[in-house]
């Protein structure tokens, strides 16, 4: 049976082989890295896709890579070593910065890039993403000892987000 580390290894392989330019784990699994584990059924991964001539980004090359590797894709998720992974192209300057500033942590022997908790809070507070569940997650993260409140305030100010 595969392990969670196997899934993370594949993320690193995707970067090494140029399928994605950069990645960072986000969402509930990122919260688990920084704070307490919460239920989730998928692994959200923010990505920078390689530059293409077209102005419109497409995940098609990524899905083609997955198919060639034997990873099934369904409902915008690719099941990598037993874990449904949703690849989310960075959608805003805040998401760009979240990927750029991600921390490299280790899971077992595998390095993994994870969105920092301050950015997770800010991403949850983006307009259009403020569902009750996301606000609740932002509030829970704000109580975490791993979080730097001044950094959150800075992000909210710079990206004009409402607390």
């Amino acid at each position, binding site marked *: 049976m*595969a*392990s969670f580390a196997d899934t993370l290894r594949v993320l690193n392989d995707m970067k090494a082989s140029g399928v994605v330019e950069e990645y960072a784990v986000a969402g509930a699994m990122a919260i*688990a890295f920084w704070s*307490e*584990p919460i239920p989730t*059924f998928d692994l959200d991964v923010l990505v920078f896709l390689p530059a293409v001539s077209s102005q419109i980004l497409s995940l098609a090359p990524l899905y083609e890579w997955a198919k060639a590797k034997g990873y099934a894709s369904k409902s915008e998720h690719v099941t990598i070593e037993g874990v*449904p992974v949703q690849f989310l192209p960075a959608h805003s300057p805040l998401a760009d910065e979240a990927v750029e500033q991600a921390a490299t942590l280790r*899971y077992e022997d595998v390095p993994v890039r994870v969105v920092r908790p301050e950015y997770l809070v800010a991403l949850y507070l983006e307009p259009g993403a403020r569902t009750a569940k996301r606000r609740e997650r932002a509030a829970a993260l704000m109580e975490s000892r791993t979080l730097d409140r001044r950094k959150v305030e800075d992000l909210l100010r710079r990206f004009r987000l409402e607390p």
Partner: protein
Amino acid sequence: MAPASKPRPRASPELIAALRAGKSELRRERETLDLREKVRLVLELQRCILPLLRRRRRLTAWERPWQITP
């Protein structure tokens, strides 16, 4: 008009504060678990929550416990 409910004894503010502090303490303990243990807990949570979700709504294709080891 709803009948006035019977006055009930209430917990003291100190007790409520202690209960909240206990919750925070548990949260802090879970925060400091090693990552493998956290992933094990996520897998456990998936198995616990699935029957509840299934009763509430139709599950999407990817809402299944991960068939992995931590």
